[in-house]
């Protein structure tokens, strides 16, 4: 009994409750009686069938206490049988014995079948019981049946259970339970789960198996760092003291393979984004060879848009660490600068990286100038939160690329040369050919007249002396209309607000023509009635 701490306890508790009900006493006692009879003698093996019939039937979804008890009782019985070796066939087993073993094996398989069905059914408590029982049986199997690793994990009870779990879908609570109680806890379970997930992902047998695999992988939070972390195994087998999963690199390789199998599949945009989202902290740590992610990242980056944005940080990591050569990287980066970016929620992330990319002083001035000019052009139609990032960024760029300062200060050699239009070509995709360096940042000058006083003040740093080495961009990144409004409205008004001195005669109506006062713009445009 002690080996079923969870289930046993709950059932015992329930039993106690039920005992008061004289009708049910009969059912419970009969189940327990049956169980003890089977335990007592082989003669009563046939009663196993009776007991199993009491278990959950396929169609009844009713959570019957009795049936649960029966399921547990059967499980206990089988555990005992496995431990006793009644399910294993030796060379010296007689024919009769063999028949019995065969029969028991069949029953055992029937029982497992039933449990797996219960696992896939949409019934949380039964699912959870079934999972516990299956894992318990699996443990007994592994301990006493002496199967090879291959058969044990890849094709046996575990594999079937895992497949059922994967098919159950991301919403199933039992999946979470599995991840929580087995996957996180036991290293061998994790190791073999990764292997199974990889195969499942590449198999693509069902429509949403990929999504399910992905969702399971997404829940993996814990990454073992040192070999010492790999100590806890679900199955204690004395025969193989040094198993594969004890080695960190093997462990990692398994996870890496699982991920790669997923990444190789055709992912939709949403999946891609979610993968990119967890790339840096959940995926990369598993990878002993990060460069394997290269293809995926470059593909994502090439896709552009928000996907490209999210791929950027991973790509940057590869470029920086793994010496990845991405051809025309800056061209691509330049093409990502568009109006949508200014309104995107990934804006701050992008700018943080953009500053890093452009901080190199070895970049050609023409390229940096193109970025500066494009940013300032975009700022002209951006929300204030974007402008407050763009201006310090431009400042930093101008400071680190003094060649570009011509864009803010250019004394004409020939006075009064008419600048017919802008040399800068907004449509040019190649940042080296935009002629931005021959242009001026009129846009920033205009933004010095921005309606928001703080934005206007920030824009003015461009026209003051560049005494500061660089602005810390992080301070400017996370703003929005809401935060700005919050700041404005939470300021205490110690000072009395200024009041317009002239009280207008008309607000919602036109002035009399004789009064000589100009009408409100609103009055001209709207009729108030």
């Amino acid at each position: 009994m002690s080996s079923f701490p969870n289930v046993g306890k709950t059932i015992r508790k329930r039993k106690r409750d039920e005992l008061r009900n004289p009708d049910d006493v009969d059912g419970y006692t009969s189940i327990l009686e049956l169980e003890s009879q089977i335990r007592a003698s082989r003669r009563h093996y046939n009663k196993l069938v009776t007991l199993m019939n009491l278990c959950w039937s396929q169609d009844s979804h009713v959570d019957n206490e009795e049936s649960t008890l029966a399921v547990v009782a059967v499980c206990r019985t089988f555990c005992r049988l496995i431990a006793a070796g009644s399910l294993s066939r030796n060379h010296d087993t007689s024919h009769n014995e063999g028949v019995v073993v065969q029969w028991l094996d069949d029953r055992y398989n029937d029982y497992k079948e039933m449990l797996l069905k219960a696992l896939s059914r949409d019934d949380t408590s039964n699912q959870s019981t079934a999972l516990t029982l299956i894992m318990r049986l699996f443990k007994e199997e592994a301990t006493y049946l002496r199967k090879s690793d291959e058969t044990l994990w890849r094709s046996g009870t575990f594999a079937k259970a895992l497949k059922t779990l994967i098919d159950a879908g991301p919403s199933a609570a039992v999946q979470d339970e599995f991840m929580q109680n087995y996957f996180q806890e036991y290293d061998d379970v994790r190791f073999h789960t990764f292997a199974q997930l990889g195969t499942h992902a590449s198999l693509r047998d069902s429509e949403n198996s990929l999504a399910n695999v992905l969702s399971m992988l997404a829940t993996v939070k814990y990454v073992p760092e040192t070999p010492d972390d790999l100590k806890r195994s679900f199955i204690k087998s004395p025969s193989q003291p040094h198993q594969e999963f004890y080695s960190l690199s093997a462990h990692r390789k398994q996870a890496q393979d699982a991920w790669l199998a997923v990444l190789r599949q055709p992912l939709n945009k949403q999946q891609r984004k979610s993968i990119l989202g967890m790339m840096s902290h959940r995926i990369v740590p598993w990878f002993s060879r990060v460069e394997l992610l290269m293809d995926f990242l470059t593909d994502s980056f090439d896709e552009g848009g928000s996907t490209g944005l999210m791929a950027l940080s991973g790509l940057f990591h590869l470029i920086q660490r793994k010496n990845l050569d991405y051809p025309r990287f800056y061209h691509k980066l330049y093409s990502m600068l568009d109006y949508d970016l200014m309104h995107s929620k990934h804006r701050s992330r992008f700018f943080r990286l953009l500053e890093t990319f452009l901080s190199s002083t070895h970049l050609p001035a023409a390229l940096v100038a193109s970025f500066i000019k494009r940013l300032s052009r975009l700022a002209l139609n951006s929300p204030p939160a974007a402008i407050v990032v763009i201006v310090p960024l431009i400042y930093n760029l101008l400071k680190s690329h003094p060649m570009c300062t011509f864009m803010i200060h250019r004394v004409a050699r020939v006075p009064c040369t008419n600048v017919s239009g802008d040399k800068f070509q907004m449509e040019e995709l190649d940042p080296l050919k935009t002629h931005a360096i021959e242009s001026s940042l009129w846009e920033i000058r205009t933004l010095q007249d921005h309606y928001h006083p703080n934005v206007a003040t920030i824009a003015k740093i461009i026209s003051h002396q560049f005494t500061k080495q660089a602005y810390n961009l992080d301070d400017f990144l996370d703003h929005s209309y809401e935060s700005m409004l919050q700041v404005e409205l939470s300021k205490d008004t110690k000072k009395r607000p200024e009041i317009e001195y002239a009280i207008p005669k008309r607000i919602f109506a036109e002035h009399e023509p004789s009064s000589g006062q100009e009408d409100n713009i609103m009055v001209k445009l709207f009729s108030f009635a």
Partner: protein
Amino acid sequence: MAPSQLKKLKASLRESGVVGPQKSKKQKKQASKNGTLREGRIQRNEALNSIREKFAPFEVKAPVRNKFDFVSRNGVAGKASKGVVGRPGVTKGLGEENRRRNLLPEMQRRNKVGGIRDRRFGESDPTMTPEERNLERFVREKQRGDRKASMFNLEDDELTHFGQPLASDEAGNLEDFKEDDIELSDVSASEPEDDERPHKRQRLEDDESGSDDDRTKVDGTAQPGRPKTKNEVMKEVVAKSKLHKYERQQAKEDDDDLRAELDKGLPDLFTLMRGKPKLPVAPPPENLPNGTMNPDRLALLNGKDRAQADKEYDERLREYTFDQRSRPTVRTLTEEEKLEREATKLKTLEEERQRRMRGDPESEDQESDADEEALANGDPPDPRDSDAFGLGSGIPEEHERKELDVEDEDDFVLDDELIASNSDVDLSDIDDSPIQSDHEASEDEDREFVQGLLSKEDTAREELKFLANEKETAAKSTSTDVPFTFICPQTHSELIEISNSVAITDLPTVVQRIRALYQPKLAVENKTKLGVFSAVLVDHISYLANRPSHPPFSVLEALIRHTHSLAKTFPEEIGRAFRGHLSDMQQKRPLAPTPGDLVILTAISTIFPTSDHFHQVVTPAMLCMTRYLGQKVPQRLSDLVTGTYIAGLVLQYQRKSKRYVPEFVNNIFTTLYALIPPESMPGRPVPRHSIPVSLHMSKQKGSSSHNRELEFWDTVPSDEAPDDHNNPLKESLLITHLAFVVLIAQMWRSQSAFVEIIEPILELLAHVESQAIPLNFSHAIKGNLQKALIAARQSHAEALSNRQPLELHHHRPLPIKTSIPKFEESYNPTSHYDPDRQRSELSKLQAEHKKERKGALRELRKDANFMAREGLREKRERDAAYEKKMRRVVSMVQGEEGHEAKEYEREKRSRKNAKKR
């Protein structure tokens, strides 16, 4: 080895000739005869003195040794060679003397209370003989008595006329020698007596010229160094001023006399000129000017009691302070002056507004700290990068500024609708330095207002009715039964209660009456009450606009104007109320403003100066609006109308400051793309959103001639007209936005990036134009489109031709910080070379303080020593005296005892002898 001290002394004595070979008697006699002996004695004394000095080495203090003679240049050359020789003995003696003079008397006077100081004249002057003393004292006594008797006695009991004695012409008569001339007798005796002059004048003149000197002379001989008392000085001053006045009068009268004389001769002159002598006319009876002086004053002069005079004077002064007439009156201004004053006031207000628009700090407000100033001037900010810009927490106030003098009087003189409000701007309460005239004016108007309340209200109501034309009849019927008294609503529900009881068109009247009833001048607590009421009024404006029964805008307008005039008195309350609304709006419905919110935003546009660089109310309001413009994805036609309304408000806000609003441009794109969707538009400045098809403009069926104007209530989604069939509204939206293009083409044409702003819009317009035929635009749209295109192209071309490359960095080059140490030409280790001026001054001061402290301590110690010494001496004296006395007593007693003993012995012996006998 140097010779011993004794030998040296002998040698020096010999050298100076003090000791020498003894002179013979004859020589001595001769010398005494010549007087050389005396000379010789003087010489000897001198020589002895010098020798004594030489042989007392501690009499002279050696100059302070200069520690770093060898380094310091001037130390070797100048200062040290001169040397300051101190004579500690002498200074000590001086100090002792000083103490004896100052400290000792104090010491002796210690613990002694009261006492009599002999201040009798000449008492402490040893140079005077007792007779002289007595004489002097007598003279002084006399003088004092006289002076006291007639303080302002100009006449000395003698009546004069024109300064001439009335009695007779005997000016030179010395017989009426008065007693009070005694005091001057000795002085004036020395001068030649000018007998022609009138008696009194002479006296006064003498007094003037000689009084000071005389008295000091007299006093000086008697009491050296006695300063004049204040009383005396004042007396002199009074006397002098009187004299001058009298002289002026005299001169004038002399002139008058002369003129009269000449006038008298004029007829003669005329006759002479005519060449015909005329009969002399009898001179008119001369009427003597009997009293040019104020009788009171005359009486005062004529020896009234001083105390009484003072009392009278005080009384009069008090009367004057309470007299209304004594206040300086305000000159009635002419029309031109009034206009000019008005103009200057407007000009200063406008200048102030411009300053605020630029975001400059308050000119008078110099104490604003550097950080703040840096921000306002846009200086490179401090290390806390973003904080400096006020994006995060702790935003410095951009400009602290003194309150502008609030006077809305002038506005209201013209504005009879809100006449009630003149009165509650209590200038004296708001600021302490109102222009006097304005204050007066307000008081006047106040009185007027209290009296003529009814009539003015009637006119106001009339005005209102004029505005609310459609409800005129209803207003007429109800306004008569509007009660005249209300409680001052302190919560919004109270105001709703009140407003429910009256017709909505009467609400402004109600507000006016409340303002009149609770005018701050009438009771102390009214000011706070009205303050709360004004905030409640703001709530009510938005409440009214939110009501489904669409209240007339004339009422809203009147309420907003009431709020505006109240805001001049209660800016904090109203500002807070508006900010509360904005914060409510941004928290609860940032992208779904109610009509109430829109009206509030409109009210802000008129009540507050929207052109300010920073304003507590306007800046958040602006952010609220741009947030809607930037983030709202239009789903219904009403959203588009709301966006258009807000965009219009944005323009209204920026009408003066002409600041650039990116969201406004974006909104044009959003709206026009929603109305006329493009097939493909790369690089549009607004993000792609899925916009419902129902917002698209459909092909027009025939040319609808009637143009529907956008209405305020279109901002509320209505179910009557579904969006996809409401083509007239879409049309008018399009027209409005085309008008916006014209407006911004005007407004931002001077912006440096105007080309960049307008170019996408031009593309957009081209797109709209391309849809003209498929959508079958009406004439109005086409016309507006053409107008917009022309305006945009024109200003675009203009901006393009005017554009110059940026030249933002014409800054003075910054010097590179030098790190080479400065070389000092004449380095003196004793002096401090602190580059920090403040610190060096401080250390100098500290050194001085230390020195002074040491000196004071030393002085105190010496004083204590002196006192102890004196005390000891006194005690010794006392002891000695006591001992002497005791000795005397003891010896006396002993002597007596001895005498008695002897007597006794004698007696005994005689008795014995007698017995024997």
